[in-house]
């Protein structure tokens, strides 16, 4: 899945960058290294994802669809709040742009992300067509099955496949993945600058200047 893959890639690159900067700074310097701030209010984001997982699960199918959609969009509002609170992170604006594109196409198509039967087949999930009618939500996803000709803002829908990965994703999802990689690398890049500043301050204080 693209978001998990992007996070793993971003973390691996960030750790490699941090490791390289520590080596470049010289032995014994790691103790003073500071790095990333955490995402503010991230437990709210995690709770929102948990609610979303419940809402797209089989047990929530008994809920009226209007209620499910309203609850899904309530989590979207909470997530938008968390994201805008953290815009200071490098890369966060890519996430904001991706979110805006996803929300736009979802709102234009009744509240869920449209995906066509052709895309499902290309993404290796053609079997889902046997149990999902046109216009019905897909099990365990925020998607709805819609013919591409009936999809508003079709270019922004889930229509990109990346073999050998299964499934499909949207342009917005791609931007969100890119934003995560950039945010992690930006945080790793900030650490050496902080260390240099700390060293300058320490050097001046040893000669009596604070």
């Amino acid at each position, binding site marked *: *899945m*693209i*978001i*998990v893959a992007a*996070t793993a890639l971003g*973390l691996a690159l*960030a*750790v490699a960058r*941090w490791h390289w900067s520590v080596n470049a700074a010289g032995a014994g310097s*790691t*103790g003073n*290294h*500071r*790095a*990333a*701030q*955490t*995402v503010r209010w*991230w437990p709210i*984001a*995690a709770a*929102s*994802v948990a609610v*979303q*997982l419940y809402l797209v699960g089989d047990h929530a199918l008994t809920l009226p669809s209007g209620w499910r959609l309203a609850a899904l969009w309530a*989590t*979207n509002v909470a*997530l938008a709040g*968390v*994201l805008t609170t*953290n815009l200071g992170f490098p890369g966060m604006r890519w*996430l904001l742009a991706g*979110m805006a594109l*996803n*929300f736009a196409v979802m709102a234009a198509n009744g509240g*869920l*992300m449209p*995906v066509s039967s052709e*895309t*499902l087949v290309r993404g290796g*999930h053609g079997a889902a067509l046997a149990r999902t009618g046109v216009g019905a939500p*897909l099990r*365990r*996803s925020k*998607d709805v099955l819609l013919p591409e000709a009936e999809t508003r803002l079709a270019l922004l829908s*889930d229509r990109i496949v990346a073999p050998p990965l*299964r*499934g*499909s*994703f*949207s342009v*917005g*999802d791609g931007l*969100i*993945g890119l*934003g*995560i990689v950039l*945010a*992690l690398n930006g*945080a790793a890049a900030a650490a050496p600058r902080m260390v240099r500043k700390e060293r300058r301050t320490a050097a001046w204080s040893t000669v009596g200047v604070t």
Partner: protein
Amino acid sequence: MTRLSSLLRVAQEYRPVLRLALLAVGLLAVGLGVAAPECFPDDNGC
């Protein structure tokens, strides 16, 4: 005691990595929430 102190020293040394990992968890939570790929991770391998 020596083992504990060396463990603490290693933890202190790699604290930035732990913080990066925590940042990644936060970003993953936000990303999963606002993204809408065709399926969540499940037994289909999505």
